[in-house]
């Protein structure tokens, strides 16, 4: 059973697991998905890409930012059957730019090929994971760095 104590102005409650088994009756206000003040996820309510999303790390702001934006926009708005198939040139430009900055975008063969493969066959929901493939280790973010971390970020994106 829970145990409660008061120390001056501070209240201390000890609860067991059973105490917390019943669902909470605390009321939370429903979130407005179109709230302009809220931090947005990768895709804005109007369908545009949020280039300032923390999940992108420094991709959109670094030296290859414009190439990245072109490539990713092309992919995002692509209506082809194989999504992004017309964006090969943009991705190639981006890759060439990134090769000029090996410190910022470490060149790893499997990362490159997987990002190419994913970008041509993935869907919008796979976009965050695309970024995790593209984002380099040196510019690490909790979102992209490992699979463990993608779930909290996603929940934040969803909220």
């Amino acid at each position, binding site marked *: 059973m*829970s*145990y409660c104590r008061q*120390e*001056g*102005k*501070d*209240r*201390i*409650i*000890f*609860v*067991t*697991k059973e*105490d*917390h088994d*019943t*669902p*909470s*009756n*605390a*009321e*939370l*206000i429903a*979130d407005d998905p179109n709230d*302009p*003040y*809220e*931090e947005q996820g990768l895709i804005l309510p109007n369908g545009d890409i949020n*280039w*300032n999303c*923390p*999940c*992108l*790390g*420094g991709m*959109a*702001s*670094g*030296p290859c*930012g*414009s190439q990245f*934006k072109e490539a990713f926009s092309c992919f995002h708005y692509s209506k082809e059957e194989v999504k992004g198939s017309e964006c090969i040139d943009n991705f190639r430009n981006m890759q060439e730019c990134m090769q000029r*900055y090996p*410190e*910022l975008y470490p060149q790893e063969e499997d990362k490159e090929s997987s990002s190419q493969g994913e970008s041509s066959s993935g869907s919008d929901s796979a976009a965050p994971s695309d970024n995790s493939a593209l984002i380099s*280790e*040196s*510019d*690490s*973010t*909790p*979102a992209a*760095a490992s699979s*463990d*971390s993608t779930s*909290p*970020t996603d*929940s*934040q994106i969803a*909220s």
Partner: protein
Amino acid sequence: MLKCRTVWKKLAPLARSSSTLCRQNVKRTGLNNGRIPTCVPAANMSTGPGGLGGDNLKYTIMVGAACVGSLTYAYFLLKGDQKRYQERIEEITTRSQRSSKEEAATVQSEPPAVEATQTEAVPESVPEAAPSPEEPSPPAAPAEEPAAPAEAAAPSETTAPPPADEPVVEAPPEEAATPVAAPVVEEAADSTPASLKVPSHSPYLLIGGGTASFAAARSIRARDPGARVLIVTDEPDLPYMRPPLSKELWFSDDPSVTETLRFKQWNGKERSIYFQPPSFYINSEELASAENGGVAVLTGKKVVHMDVRGNKVKLDDDTEISYDKCLIATGGVPRNLQVIERAGEEVMKKTTLFRKIEDFKSLDNVSRNAKSITIIGGGFLGSELACALGRRSTESGLEVIQMFPEKGNMGKVLPEYLSNWTTEKVKREGVKVIAEALVKSVTCKDDKLEIHLKDGRLVKTDHIVAAVGLEPNVDLAKSAGLEVDSDFGGYRVNAELQARSNIWVAGDAACFYDIRLGRRRVEHHDHAVVSGRLAGENMTGASKPYWHQSMFWSDLGPDVGYEAIGIVDSSLPTVGVFAKATAKDTPKAATEKSGTGIRSESETEDTATSPVASVTPLPPVAHKDDYGKGVIFYLRDKVVVGIILWNVFNRMPIARKIIKDGEEHADLNEVAKLFNIHED
């Protein structure tokens, strides 16, 4: 021109010495020639007629030739310098007309310029080699770079003569110039990122090179394609993150960590404390002409004056930079105790005010050599440093003392029962904690410091670390005419972080209006990131208020790790809901959790918890009052304004939501259920 002066200064003693020798020899020969008949006995020793006189003559001629040679050389060098200076001035005035195509041309003209220096230096005399790289490059845009190597080559050429012997003064400059010019050119080219010239205008000017500034730069670049951002900082370093300086860097196994400044994150991956490597940034000279814009950092320059009406700032070297939009992210300076300041230089030398990379390096050094270190201050920084040094003390026998006026560690943040519990944990880390300690005076005796407390206790130590708060840097308030807040300190800004039409403030220095929690000033890393990002968004036209609550975190040893959000002030009434300790709840489980927790919710940069190397699990505590894990709510007028997640992780979004709602909850135990504290 300065270089000319240094060259002349270098030459002057040489010229003087050679000329005095000249004079002496001339005098001697003169003496001999004129007075031999009368002064033979006196003159015999040093000089004499006949054979000795002949040698003397040769010597005179050689020295005379050397003098003449060096004077000619100096003359040509000065001439060359003047010519270069003129060309530079011309180049600056016509620079605005250059296009980026010429920039590409320079890249190609540089290698031939280098080769030209090499091949031409040998056959021709040195002074001609200096102006020759100028010829292919003046028409090109950043001719600064060829000019820099030429200039850098020149001082290196001049440093060659003084060490050389006098008679062979002429030959070495030419030979030395060739091999020296090549590596020097490369060195100079590499070092030009440490900008030589200050740009006269930048559309986005960020004053201060810390976390808030970098977050703003990133935000601006993301939202305004091709934006040109200039960061001006008085530190010598590129933007870096501070939390590892008092946490992860101390737990690193790498002995060269003070040089590499790399640490291991919670996921095992290593990274540097610098947000980005130097290749991310562009040179400030290239800022105006870069096709896609970029972020340039001007290090070692301080903004001393701000002209708001004229939209420009003045640096400490009297150069002016005009801007379209400006961010002030000057952070703050560590506070010092008055008793230490009054105690004199001896005491000040043994005191560290911890904030920057250099402070970390010096404290690391001290911790290896000193026998006893005392930390004054019981807040975040003081307690973290105490725990970090305490861990070191187990290996090295270093005595670590922490003293503060409160009753327990984090006394101003945690409710009393939790503060006491935490203090016990800190003591277990090897720290001698002296609570309720007010420092009366500090003296230096026999190379040791003596701290006299008001209650009569005396503490003897080798070094003091003062962690007693941060003074926000509002130096520009006067010249800019910006308001300073009297309650919290810092520049007063509105909910959108704006001080004046084109001026925003973010980070530690901003006293802003939080729509939910009221006016406040926050000194945490995540707030710097969130506010910096918001300022960047507003500078690019967003007009968003401070809405996304920032969080903060701290780790004090393997048993205590917490994340917090909102107003966490121990003077507020609190309600703490803790999981009752069962056999399964051990501190070890909590440390494993802290290995997977995500600390920084803003996720702009990865920040880590302390990697726990090896922890012997303490026996399961059956004691009722073990605050292993739980949630603490801070209330103001019955509304939750702050939450601490005590050894529970990955729940920050729920905490943020509760604060955002700002509702009165009748039963906080029900709210606590939302956090599932019994689960991992």
